[in-house]
């Protein structure tokens, strides 16, 4: 090893240490609010209000908050509802949008251009503009309220724009046409080409989109609150909402409920994250 490269190595270590320090500091700032939730989920309301920063309740950890949250939210049922709605929505969303995005990238048809522009523009529409018309049509006219599939249907409608938009960018920049053409020459139809060649290559972007959409569907409150007016269909945010009072709330239960409801999302994130990084491998092979 030469002198200069050793010096560069030392420099590199220093730099790594610097980066690590920055990462740790920013990390703590980012994590602080979530840590507050976690810490306070084990405290009584009195000590949450009087000493939100205190780490432990003087009366010991209040596991009762979790017990209350599970019982009062009817956690298994609510969790199941959330899981079904979000799971079905996201899986369909990924398939439907990536197909549309692929067509939009690979053709210059007017219909595609108009469709894509309309989707882009719709991402700007404030939800309040369509809120009342939406339920007037699907509630009062079609009586579709209080069905889980209605929620899936609406999640798809509101989600396809962003998902298509992101896949569009990825396909355009990262998927060479040559690959598809090769498959076409081998006699594969468009659908087979898409599902065997293109779709697997979309893993990094689809994982990213999946995470983002799971998050927004999982935490969504306003739309589900209009679709599900019966308790048997409640999703997690709707159930947590029952701990809010008119003037003051059951903070301990809320924080416990919140912790319980986000735990699965963290798990999903950790799994999907591997696929986001999987993109490096895919790129290197190519």
């Amino acid at each position, binding site marked *: 090893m030469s002198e200069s490269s050793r010096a560069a190595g030392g420099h590199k270590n220093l730099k790594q240490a610097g980066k690590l320090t920055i990462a740790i500091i920013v990390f703590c700032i980012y994590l602080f609010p979530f840590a507050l939730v976690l810490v306070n989920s084990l405290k009584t309301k*009195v000590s949450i209000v009087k000493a939100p920063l205190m780490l432990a309740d003087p009366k010991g950890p209040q596991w009762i908050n979790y017990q209350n949250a599970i019982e009062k939210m009817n956690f298994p049922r609510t969790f199941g509802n959330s899981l079904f709605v979000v799971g079905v929505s996201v899986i369909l969303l990924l398939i439907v949008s990536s197909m549309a995005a692929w067509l939009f990238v690979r053709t210059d048809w007017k219909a595609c251009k108009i469709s894509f522009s309309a989707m882009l523009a719709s991402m700007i529409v404030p939800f309040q503009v369509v809120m009342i018309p939406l339920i*007037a049509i*699907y509630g009062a006219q079609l009586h579709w309220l209080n069905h889980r599939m209605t929620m899936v249907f609406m999640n798809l409608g509101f989600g396809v724009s962003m998902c298509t938009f992101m896949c569009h960018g990825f396909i355009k920049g990262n998927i060479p046409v040559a690959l598809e053409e090769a498959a076409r020459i081998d006699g594969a139809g468009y659908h087979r080409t898409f599902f065997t060649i293109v779709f697997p290559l979309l893993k990094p972007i689809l994982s990213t989109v999946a995470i983002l959409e799971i998050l927004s569907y999982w935490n969504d409150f306003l739309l589900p609150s209009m679709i599900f007016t019966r*308790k048997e269909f409640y999703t997690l945010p709707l159930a947590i909402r029952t701990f809010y009072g008119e003037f*003051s709330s059951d903070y301990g239960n809320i924080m416990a409920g919140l912790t319980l409801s986000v735990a699965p999302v963290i798990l999903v994130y950790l799994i999907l994250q591997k696929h986001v990084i999987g993109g490096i491998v895919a790129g290197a092979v190519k």
Partner: protein
Amino acid sequence: MKKFLSLLLAAVMLLSVASVAMADEVGEPFANQVSITLMNSKPEITAAMQAAADKFGAAYNVKIEITETSNPGETLTTRYNSGDAPTISVVDIANVKDLAREGKIADLGDQPWAAIGGKDMGAVINDVLYGMPLTIEAKANLINKTAIEKITGEPFDPLKYQTKEDFEALLKQLREGGMENPVIINKEDWSIGSHFTQYFYGIQDGTIAGAEAFIERVRAGEEKFIDNPVFNACMDMFDLYMEYNINKQDPLSADYDLNASYLAEGEAAFWINGTWAWPNLAPFAVEGQEYSIMHMPVSAGAQGKLLAQATKYIVVDKTYASEEQQEAAKKFLNWLIYTADGQNAMINDCGMVTAFTNIELPPSNPFNVGLKEYIDKGLTFEAVTYLPSDHRSAVGGATMQAYLDGAKTREEVGAAFDAYWAAHEVNY
């Protein structure tokens, strides 16, 4: 002998309970189960209400599903537009007006409870009774009696304090006695922007007619707020509160739950709030401390009286609910008012004071006990029904918060209210 007597007593009580539980006013159970929904905008009573509904449902073959909302106006708009209106709604007066104007809710004037206080305190619009008064609440000073008495050394009688001057002397005494800032002012717009501003109108002469006459004079440009003696008396009172405000270092950072703890623990003695706050205060309450309420001691109309009125009303949908569902809804209301179980649910489980003269159960929490004393002495007055639903959002909240923060003068506050009334339609 003693045992026999107590047994007899128990038997008599059981009998009377049993006869009330099947009160005539409620009627017969349904042959086939009826399903109805109830939208509750008073979340703290949801659990108790659901328990009551289940009890009623088991006896009368009705299934009631309760959902709750913190924004009844918006929820009603979405529920009515989605064709899924709740059969029964627990709402505020502004919502009753909106629904009644569009002909969405049933006339409850023929219900038996109308005659026993239901119509007097209910939501009556154009002489039609649309809303059953669910609960009577007072907007008042919540007090910690023990904390006051500890400093003054004498029993505290709220009625001794009739004028601002009387009250100021008391505050001074408390401050000298070591309670630096005995008053707690909320920062919330519903508190200072809605409840407090009702005094501007309500104590013009203590009657609704007087309030409406004042509004008419302002709208006609004949009178300005800043020239009105009652407005000035209220603002003098507010200035006094501000001077002794425990949050005065940073009044808009006041925290509702901390405020509750200040009163509960006797750090302060007066909380400008209302009787509904008992569930909020209870977690902080200290064993042995005595809590109650008192009127606002301002020298104007309704002097020495407590601002108390029905604050939540129950309405029954007639647009989407079938005849049978409406029938079931009305049965439930009668069950609440006329049976021992129903009364127990309202008074003890929900912790409310009601308008109905047939209910003899004593109120269940200290604030309501205080309220009942004022009611029994005839020392209450009503306000509010004439204020448009955007009074708080358009003028009350922001203006009073700015005043509390020192960002607006009294003249500017008056001018803001003048401008509001000049630009707004009124439908009483």
